[in-house]
């Protein structure tokens, strides 16, 4: 039915399967949209947030998707600025995942504020001293960059590409992609950092507060570093899941292993720095405020020492060690374990840097308060996941996301050509004429 839209030289599932998948995920999406509308129409009383938990599940989700979406800027940086040419075979997917993550973050933010119609105040009445202002500006700008990076991919749809204007536009955009990748890396450095700064500047909250370098607290640099380290883990994890669902090899092992190796070294260096930061904070910063590590981790079972250990060791040291060793990253199950732990680790870090800050009492006569989200919060947090899956489903089906797919999955030309398979005889199944190949080396 839609064979004319499917990229050359690759095979896709029958239309009914595609529509079924869309329908199932679409139902989840509709559930999320319903919850979103409830929050917009009835207000944030639909949530379980309260005056102790002004920041809760949504802000965590925001920080987490932006952290794992960091794979886009860092892979782009490695590909276009550093010149790791092999990564051209995964950069499209990294950009798509980044686009989904960042658009999700913006959507969640739009639900999270009490007066969504006043969102523009953050630009109009901007307080330049606020980290959140920096987040808003850089996030919006970087989302614009991601759109520019994603558009050429859309333009490469077979039918769109036939239009000379779009073909040339796409080609020219690819020619300038290094500039956008560099811009994206620059913007990402600031918004990932300023998200860390959101916590680090709160000098009234000893659990969050960190010392500064110039105007930036240490968390500024830690957040950027961790996004660059763990973001590629998420790109690799989603790629692996996509391969399992499609039952195809989509990216060659050397590409996967290169990104895994870089990610491993980044995680290792991050964990070392994070360890130093934690030690300095616990022994110097917190103590100067009359608090010890036990005040933060020893007073509540949920936010106990186990969380710190899990974040730093199980989800930090362990994946780093696996990924920096050749055996570790070449062994599929070890590699997948490591990247999964990495994704959990960075999400846990963001949880701690949002929820535990809110939970930990500061006044001596105050109490430790725990929180659990309402179904509306859960549904609206799952909403972007469903949206992301739908976007991946559509993009994978109609766009040349994986340049190596045709080569890795040659179509047997003796088989009758199905309606969902598109082989362009005169083009010689030139499926590698993709965004990545057209870009400058």
């Amino acid at each position, binding site marked *: 039915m839609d064979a004319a839209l499917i990229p050359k030289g690759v095979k896709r599932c029958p239309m009914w399967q595609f529509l079924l998948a869309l329908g199932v995920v679409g139902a989840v999406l509709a559930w999320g949209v319903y919850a979103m509308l409830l929050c917009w129409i009835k*207000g*944030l*009383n639909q949530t379980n*947030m*309260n*005056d*102790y938990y*002004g*920041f809760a599940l949504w802000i965590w989700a925001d920080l987490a998707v932006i952290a794992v979406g960091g794979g886009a800027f860092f892979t782009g940086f490695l590909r276009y600025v550093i010149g790791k040419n092999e990564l051209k075979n995964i950069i499209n997917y990294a950009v798509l995942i980044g686009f989904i993550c960042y658009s999700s973050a913006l959507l969640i933010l739009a639900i*999270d*504020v*009490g*007066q*969504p119609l*006043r*969102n523009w*105040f*953050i630009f*109009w*009445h*901007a*307080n330049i*001293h*606020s*980290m*959140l*202002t920096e987040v*808003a500006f850089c996030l919006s700008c970087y989302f614009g960059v991601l759109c520019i990076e994603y558009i050429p991919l859309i333009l490469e749809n077979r039918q769109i590409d036939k239009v000379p204007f779009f073909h040339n536009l796409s080609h020219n955009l690819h020619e300038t992609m290094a500039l956008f990748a560099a811009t994206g890396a620059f913007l990402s450095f600031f918004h990932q950092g300023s998200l860390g700064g*959101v916590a680090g*500047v*709160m*000098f*009234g*909250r*000893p659990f969050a507060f960190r010392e500064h370098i110039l105007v930036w607290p240490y968390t500024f640099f830690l957040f950027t570093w961790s996004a660059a380290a763990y973001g590629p883990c998420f790109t690799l994890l989603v790629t692996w899941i996509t391969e399992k669902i499609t039952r195809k090899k989509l990216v060659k092992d050397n590409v996967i292993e290169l990104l895994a190796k870089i990610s491993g070294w980044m995680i290792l260096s991050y964990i070392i720095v994070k360890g130093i930061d934690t030690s300095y904070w616990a022994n110097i910063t917190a*103590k*100067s*405020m*009359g*608090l*010890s590590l036990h*005040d933060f981790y020893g007073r509540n079972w949920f936010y106990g020492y186990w969380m710190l250990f899990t974040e730093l060791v199980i989800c930090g040291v362990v994946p780093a060690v696996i990924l920096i060793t050749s055996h570790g990253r070449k062994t599929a199950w070890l590699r997948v374990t490591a990247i999964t732990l990495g994704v959990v680790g960075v999400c846990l870090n963001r949880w701690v840097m949002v929820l535990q*800050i*809110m939970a930990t009492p*500061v*006044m*001596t*006569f*105050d109490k430790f*308060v725990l929180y659990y989200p309402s179904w509306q919060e859960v549904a609206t947090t799952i909403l972007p996941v469903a949206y992301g899956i739908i976007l991946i489903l559509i993009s994978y089906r109609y766009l040349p996301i994986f340049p190596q797919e045709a080569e890795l999955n040659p179509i047997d030309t003796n088989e009758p050509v199905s309606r969902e398979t598109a082989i362009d005889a005169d083009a010689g199944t030139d499926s590698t004429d993709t965004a990545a190949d057209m870009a400058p080396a």
Partner: protein
Amino acid sequence: MKQAQKEHTTKRYGMVIDLDKCTGCGSCMVACMSENNVPFKTDESNKLDSITWMQVYKLTNGKSYPNTEICYLPRPCQHCAGKHEGHSPCVSVCPATATDYSKETGIVSQIYTRCFGCRYCMGACPYHARYFNWWDPVWPEGMEKYLSPDVSPRMRGIVEKCSFCFHRYQLARNKVYLEGRKDLDEDEYQTACTQACPAGAIKFGDLYNPEHEVHRIAQPDMQHGGRPQNPHVFRLLERLGTNTKVYYMSERRWVRKAGDNYLPGEFENPGAVAGSH
């Protein structure tokens, strides 16, 4: 000359609360809600989402009977100045400049029409002095006629907090201007909680003015961030550098100790900490 004029006109309104006098009756809370049109819910049992600009905490010394002691601690917004004037925990983080620090009065304001409800200020405030309007304000039928015309009610989805009854300051300034005077007398600007306290535990005035009672009691050292020089006076979480304008007074050591966090032995050794006692 200009500097001298500026110093003359600049105020630092603040409060001293005598915790040994406070009986925990809650009059201050009631007066505050009434004065400032603070909305309430039909069911106020969940205190985590109810709005109380003035909140009275109950503290105990942790000892069993007959050595148990109780202290009630009223907590309005502390109107922090931060380490440098205006760098309050909340003001510095608000992305839309919806909360501001007045260098004329030292009062931290909340601009309701500009707040878009991100709640960053709430997260940044260690005193839990900021409240979010989770619901639209609804008063029992007829009660809206008794709302104060001087204070705008707040809508759903924005943050609010104690303003040191700033509308009273505006009214007092108007009166002074119309009478051709330059300065307010101490009793011309008083907060609702101060006037409602039956025990006279709350004092309010200009911390800069040596003739005002708050200055005489707290003896703030303005060269060192307003730190109290009266040994029985302390501020909440002094060590964080929030530089608050609400001072507390108590003869009891355990009460003063409860005002801040101390590592073992620190409170007993005042020389080790640049602290509050």
